[in-house]
């Protein structure tokens, strides 16, 4: 009976050892290193659309005023236009950079809006 336990114990130890050691002898080379995975978010233009949809819902559910809704929607439209123009233009880098630009863009646009409103 004791043998069984000894053998089982050894198997457990060997299994663990195998798990730990095997990467060092693995033949597949991971030259890629750690990969940045962009989380599965839809493209920025989609999020612009979604944002406007949400705004419209907020407006229809009577949470924001019509003036605010129209202003923000117009602003998002411009953003989308910019973005679409950017898409047609191959020089603009996709991915992070462009979303950064979009962010900047939104910021600028919002500031403009605010200034227009005189706040």
């Amino acid at each position, binding site marked *: 009976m004791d043998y069984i*336990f*000894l053998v*089982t*114990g050894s198997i*457990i*130890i060997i*299994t*663990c050892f195998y*798990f*730990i*050691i*095997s*990467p*060092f002898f*693995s033949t597949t080379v*991971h030259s*890629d*290193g*750690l*990969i*940045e*995975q962009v*989380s599965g*978010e839809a493209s*920025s233009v989609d*999020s*612009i659309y*979604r*944002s406007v*949809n*949400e*705004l*419209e*819902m*907020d407006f*229809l*559910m*009577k*949470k*924001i*005023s019509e003036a*605010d809704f129209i202003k*923000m929607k117009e602003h998002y439209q411009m953003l989308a236009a910019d973005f679409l123009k950017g898409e047609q233009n191959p020089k603009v880098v996709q991915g*992070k950079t462009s979303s*950064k630009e*979009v*962010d*900047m863009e*939104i*910021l600028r*646009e*919002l500031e403009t809006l605010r200034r227009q409103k005189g706040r």
Partner: protein
Amino acid sequence: MYLIGNIALVLGVVISLYSLAANIIGIRTGDRKWLESARGGVLSLVFIAAVASFLLFYILGTSQFQFSYVAAYTSQNLPMVYKLTAFWAGNAGSLMLWTVLLCIYAGMIVFSKEKRNPMIPYVSSVLLINILFFFTVMLINGNPFEMTDKIPADGKGLNPMLQNPGMILHPVTLFMGYVGLAVPFAFAIAALIMKRMDAEWIKLTRRWTLTAWLFLTLGNIIGAWWAYVELGWGGYWAWDPVENASFLPWLTVSAFLHSVMIQERKNMLKIWNVSLIILSYILTLFGTFLVRSGILTSVHAFGDSNLGAYFLIFLAFMAMISIYIVMTRYQLIKKDSNPIESYFSKESSFLLNNLILVVAAFAVFWGTMYPLISESVTGTKVNVGAPYFDKVMAPIFLALILLMAVCPLIAWQKAAFDKFIKSAIVPLLMGLATAFLLLAAGVKGLYAILGLASTVFMFGTHVMEFVRGIHARRKATKENVFRAAVRLTLKNQRRYGGYIVHMGIAVLTVGVISSYAYSSEVMKTINKGESITIGHYELTFNGLSETTRNNNGIVVADVSVAYKGKAIGGVKPEKIFYETWPEPSTEVAVKTHWAQDLYVVLSSWETKDKVTFMVKVNPFVSWIWTGGIIVVIGSAFALIGGRPAGRIQPTSVTKS
């Protein structure tokens, strides 16, 4: 088997140490093989923890009394299910449960689809520190595979109070919540170390946090249910230190779940969110410390052991590391946030929500710790019992309910106040009507009525939100009602899941307020054939009988019940005399009606024909359980679907 169990524990310590080292080497040198090896280590830990748990189940199930844990918590004639669930009846076993969950979670993370994310080695390291701690503590101070000096003929048996279905689930669910919080904590620390203070860690851990919250909720509610049907004092929440300890992280995580939305949308509150999740994690350790140390008297106390000290040291260690990391990254985190556009916006209402939840957590913490503080500072012993918490927490919760009532009506960014007032009028009138109806019906208790009215107000707001949402969607898309309803909720699962949770809380709150304010109690000694009247109930005692079940002697009282003069069957409250336990245990008989519970305890008897009963009528208690189920459904709904917060906000450029 002793050998295998102990090999597993030693291996646990060794491998977690190794994997930690391998991770550090891998991170330092950038050598992928070391990181892969560390991942292999995590896999081994999952394997070892699984082997050890299986073994523990096995020795418990087969009553191997040469193991002191088995002898201490089970006995020959214990039903199989309780033999197995004795796994988490004692210190050593619950440490094992914690460890195995931690290992599984760590395994899930290092083998998830995010495994290539550079954060993962850091996350895995933080979790490995936890795993290392638990294996070490088990090895030193809570070894479930410890042998007895002399093999006893039979075990001591399981505490009768733990022989209840609630106890099968309560510890497991609570632990899944506790352990689950280690994951977002680990991600937060990883993000801090890597100086990636965008919302990535929050997005990656959203489901983990929500799952942990779900299990914490479930754990607390099952615990309350267990207390209600098993402890026999007629309540479900006693503000016992240990209950408080599990309530504290629930409050802070609830706050976190709301405030992360602001970070996702606006990239602000970064320090706050990190602090909240660190605090929640620390509070889970604190809770465990309270349970294990026995420094506060509690029904949950695991009694004699110095495990508490280990937890305190670990808690202090983790807290200091976290604080150090936050401090060193403070300047970095502070940058890059966006301002709130208007005082009247969802953002600020979420901040208010956070304030209330954190103040609630502080009040609970303060009340729980005050006896200790008072005794050590002034030398006078002071009790802070349930009446204190009832008084202090009632206004806080009232404020929370009111906030929940208005919050859904407020839009992000910039809400319109006049429109808000218009939307709020209908639910507010519903609340006022409730108050009026209750007063007209002669219901007493101003605070309770205020609470109930606010709850109806809150519930009404949420219903109106659904209705208005469907209406708005139909306007925008011309869909039919059904389609609009389905698509509305499916498109915004996170939001509407949250609303369902809120509605569950409303249902639960009605139960809590009513049962606190309007329960009635009678204790009476009666002869056979006589009756007790309480509320609309009339209970007639028909006789006392004795039986045996699982070798335990049981005394059963046969009581027939009439409601408003109409017979509605009977109840059979019991006293069980366990073979293995000195005191008899009470089996409460509960007759549940949607509007009230009839709660009957067989208190004592002089002869077979003269018996004392404690009878309570607790209004709306079933609503608490129903509300709990709704909360769980709502959070599950938010969990399975739901994108990270949608609308792009005027974010400034973020460093990533």
